[in-house]
């Protein structure tokens, strides 16, 4: 469903700040795969996601969604195939517009937007039944401005907006990181439910090892722009949080040793 082939990206080329963010990345997601991504800060996780979403052009390599080469397409052109939820709960919704208007915009994901009224009774009913899935009682607040919702509610709405048109690929960029533990738990529960219901092909970045193991059927670990660990369904099931943290610590230790060698 999603294929990332030999993708590289370097920021600030030919300056002192030159940074190789992605180094020859290869990744293949089958229909219905739910891959969690972990890694240190600056490992290239978000860069990988932005590359797939088309926020910037990559230096080399190809990105295919559902067999279609999207490497040259702009972000707004790829939106048809790719749904996204951002870390910032304020980023995925339009605060001065109502809940139903936000949903109506997401409903038209990647389609031509014309001069038809965005809302009608049929759509409203559909939005209501979709919102019921969130169990946040948002279905009774359709005409409220989104800016009045709490962070957790806004993130749940963003998740719904990113998924209810069944995009080919769903990208979740630490979408629970800015929430308190209780809200984060709720969003995780919803993520699991929605991804399972719609059988979405999903890539999820997280800093929480527990979430990384609990959610999804595959796991990858990134470091310095490369994928250094890949777990398939069986390996992931056997993996414990402790083992994963050890692997992670080892990685950071190497990094530390490397630094001290340079500094020493």
């Amino acid at each position, binding site marked *: 469903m999603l294929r990332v082939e030999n993708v590289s990206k370097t920021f600030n080329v030919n300056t002192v700040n030159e940074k190789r963010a992605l180094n020859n990345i290869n990744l293949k997601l089958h229909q219905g795969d739910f891959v969690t991504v972990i890694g240190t800060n600056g490992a290239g996780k978000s860069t990988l996601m932005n590359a797939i*979403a088309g926020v910037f052009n990559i230096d080399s390599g190809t990105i295919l969604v559902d067999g279609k080469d999207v490497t040259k397409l*702009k*972000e*707004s*052109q790829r*939106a*048809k195939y790719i749904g*996204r939820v*951002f870390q910032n709960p304020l*980023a*995925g*919704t*339009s*605060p*001065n*517009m109502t809940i139903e*208007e936000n949903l*109506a*915009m*997401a409903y*038209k*994901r*990647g*389609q031509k*937007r*014309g*001069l*038809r*009224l*965005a*809302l009608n009774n049929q759509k409203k009913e559909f939005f209501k039944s979709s919102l019921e899935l969130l169990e946040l009682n948002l279905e009774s607040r359709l005409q*409220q401005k989104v800016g*009045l*919702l*709490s962070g*957790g*509610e806004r993130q749940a709405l963003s998740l719904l*907006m990113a998924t209810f048109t069944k995009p080919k690929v769903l990208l979740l960029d630490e979408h629970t990181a800015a929430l*308190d533990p209780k*809200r984060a738990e709720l969003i995780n529960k919803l993520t699991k439910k929605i991804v399972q219901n719609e059988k979405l092909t999903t890539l999820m970045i997280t800093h929480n090892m527990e979430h990384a193991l609990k959610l999804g059927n595959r796991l990858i670990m990134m470091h310095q722009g490369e994928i250094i660990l890949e777990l398939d369904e069986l390996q992931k099931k056997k993996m414990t949080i402790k083992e994963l943290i050890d692997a992670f610590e080892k990685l950071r230790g190497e990094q530390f040793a490397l630094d001290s060698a340079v500094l020493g």
Partner: protein
Amino acid sequence: MGIIIGSLEQGLIFAIMALGVFIAFRILNYPDLSVDGSFPMGAAISALLIVKGTNPFIALIFSGIFGGVAGLITGLLNTRAKIDGLLAGILTMTALYSVNLKIMGTSNLSLFRKNTIFTPLNNLKPQLTQLFGNSEWLSWVNQWINTIVLFLFILLIKKIIDWFLQTDLGLAIRATGDNPAMIKSLGVNTDNSTLIGLILSNALVGLSGGMMAQYQGYSDVQMGIGMIVIGLASVIIGQVIFGSKSIKRSTFAVIGGAIIYRIVIAISLYLPWLSPTDMKLITAFLVILSLTLPQHSKIGKNIFWQKRKVNKKNYHAQQISTENN
């Protein structure tokens, strides 16, 4: 009474311009200063075409079209040439000053004894007198007929704008001003939605300019100076008094604000210690007053009932969200 009617009529014409300013500043969140150029451009086009013998209504349509072109140029400078939004508007405005002089061929073009969009209404008055005889009721009608027709026309424009901003395209344009990253991730090219918004905004401004030229019977190259401030004053005064709960309420507020602004100016010019040269000072003072009063004083909150209601609602919503957390 004459003063009130006069400022109502002018207020209604300026309301169209204010609706344009509202679309750029409030909907698109775009500080578009090309208004100072597209307003006199609409006036210049109307004046030129009428002098050349064109039907005044067709001339008005062209005023709107040329205003829209001005908006398109600002938009292209911003989205394609990547010039800062504020500067793009200033550049268009500056260039249009010369263009407007070129269009008119002179700095002031009179429409004396020419047919304008108001001629049919003026011709109707003696006919009505002939039909119904001279009564008190009829003189009232004759006095107010311009205001009523203008009001109906503005109501129509308001309805069209309300409808447009509720369509799929309208929603995309509103989101472009509200959260561009989000609407981009939903597949909208924000460059295009910005362009459409600016074209619509300046078309309304051009239309308003054309109507003003036909109303006052001349077009002057200077008549656009300070127009953006008048438009902003109308938007701000209107939203402070009438609120901005929904799109329908907002457009209503802008029209109301434009009329109130005009009436306040007319009244203050009537006061013996103020002269016409003080008008810009009064305008600036009005805007400052309506921006600060509702926030910083108890009196303001009590005068502007709408604000009080909104605050109550926010408080309620906050309570809900704290409970949820």
